């Protein structure tokens, strides 16, 4: 990999040297390096478009990295990654996609991730998105499908802080009895960027629960759209929260839907869109910060 690719890898995956444990590194549309671990086997698909990951029941404490780096302008990469996670596991999966586009062409990565999480397993899934380079478009359209078996727990942390021109994120989830899903989404758009996130979550099992928290900052003339639909199909708890800071000429839309199909479904949605509170800026000014420094601190803290 060249220095751009290495820099992107470090930004989205947090390493330059190969990490411990299982990993699969995809560069410019091809798997370039892969390692299995005692609990995790990675099987490349025959068509080259992704991987199938099998995690043995009872695998605990392992961390798997699956970063994607694209630094060749014009690549349009469509990838299917399927994860089959056995029962009683406790693992982390660190995904990330970075595009450096110095060329003239649209560069795009659409990752379709499907997780089948076994009974009583815990999975933390982290996904970082990042773009850099010139004016040619960088596009990321991740689709995440989640199937949580009885008692499964998943935390999904997604971050997109910089440089992605257009993104449409679709997340679908089905939760069985006592399964829990926690989603933490962080998003910053600027310039003419657009970002859409669209969640549809089915709480099918008794005692299933979801907590969906989105924090975003929209600057410049960027546009953001937050769509979420939580279907309470049983005795369950659903909570979604969309909290956006709007700046400049940005546009933010939040369209939450909570739908109770069962008398014992308890569903809450909170949405707040507003500019940075004036008193927060004033407080930081009194500590000697300038207006711009104060805004930057507030935004960084908000998205941390």
């Amino acid at each position, binding site marked *: 990999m060249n220095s751009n690719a290495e820099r992107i890898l470090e930004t989205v995956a947090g390493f330059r040297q190969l990490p411990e444990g299982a990993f699969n590194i995809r560069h410019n549309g091809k798997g370039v390096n892969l390692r299995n671990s005692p609990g995790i086997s990675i099987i490349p698909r025959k068509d080259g478009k992704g991987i199938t990951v099998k995690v043995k029941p009872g695998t605990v404490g392992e961390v798997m990295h699956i970063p994607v780096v694209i630094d060749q302008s014009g690549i349009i990469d469509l990838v299917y990654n399927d994860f089959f996670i056995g029962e009683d596991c406790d693992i982390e999966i660190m995904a990330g996609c970075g595009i450096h586009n110095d060329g003239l062409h649209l560069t795009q990565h659409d990752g379709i991730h499907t997780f089948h999480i076994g009974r009583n397993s815990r999975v933390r899934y982290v996904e970082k998105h990042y773009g850099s380079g010139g004016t040619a478009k960088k596009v990321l359209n991740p689709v995440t499908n989640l199937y949580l078996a009885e008692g499964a727990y998943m935390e999904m942390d997604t971050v997109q802080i910089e440089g992605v021109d257009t993104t449409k994120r679709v997340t679908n989830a089905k939760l069985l009895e006592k399964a829990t899903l926690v989603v933490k989404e962080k998003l910053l758009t600027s310039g003419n960027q657009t970002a859409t996130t669209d969640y549809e979550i089915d709480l099918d099992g008794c005692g299933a629960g979801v907590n969906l928290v989105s924090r975003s900052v929209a600057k410049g003339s960027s546009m953001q759209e937050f769509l979420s639909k939580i279907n309470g199909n049983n005795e369950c708890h659903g909570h979604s929260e969309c909290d956006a800071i709007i700046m400049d000429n940005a546009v933010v839309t939040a369209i939450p839907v909570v739908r109770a199909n069962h008398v014992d479904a308890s569903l809450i949605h909170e949405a707040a869109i507003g500019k940075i509170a004036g008193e*927060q800026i004033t407080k930081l*000014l*009194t500590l000697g910060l300038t207006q711009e420094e104060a805004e930057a*601190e507030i935004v960084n803290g908000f998205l941390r």
Partner: protein
Amino acid sequence: MLELKNISFEVRDEQGAGSREILKDVSLCLEDREFMVITGPNGSGKSTLAKIIMGIVKPTRGQIVFDGTDITEADVTERARMRIGYAFQQPVRFKGINVSDLLRLAAGHELSNDQACRYLSEVGLCAVDYINREINASLSGGELKRIEIATLLARGTRLSVFDEPEAGIDLWSFQNLTRIFEKMRNDHNSAAIIISHQERILRIADTIVMLADGRVVKQGSRQEVMPYLMAHAEPCEIGKNFCPDLQRLA
């Protein structure tokens, strides 16, 4: 060190027709290392005056001189960089900014954990419990007030304005609070203006200013003003708080 000359602050009233004067021709003079307490009933203009000193509110008339420089037109950042500090009556809450961030921003440089913890201990907070807490709605009013005071300690200000610092510190002794003020005076060769209704804070003042209805109604050394206040005071809460009956004075 600080001179307020004929400060007035006027706002348009709700209907937009007339106007209302919130501060009326207020003049004050604060010497180096002076410890001034401003007291007066709710709505008398104390917080407005504090904000005018910090530059958060611009007076409609009058002049402010700090260390010989006219700062009437200086903005908040400039005044902060001249080492004027203000502890808000109602501390601001944030999302995602934690106590150690605020202390670091206040200090203007990276702080070691030890240093940050020292400021928190000074305000009677157990540092390990608070250093990584977010400054959000999960903190109580009293905790926020103490953190607010700790940020002023971290700043090392030359002039500190505390707006009702005693509010909500029920469990924390006044002795601690007054000790902080005395320590500040010794450490930084600084001066302080404290807005307070508390007799125990008034008792450590060098000078006392009483505001009522936007006007200075009494001003002088503690020895001069205190007896006057006591004579006009009415105990409000089983003699615990000091509550001058200012309607009568005004």
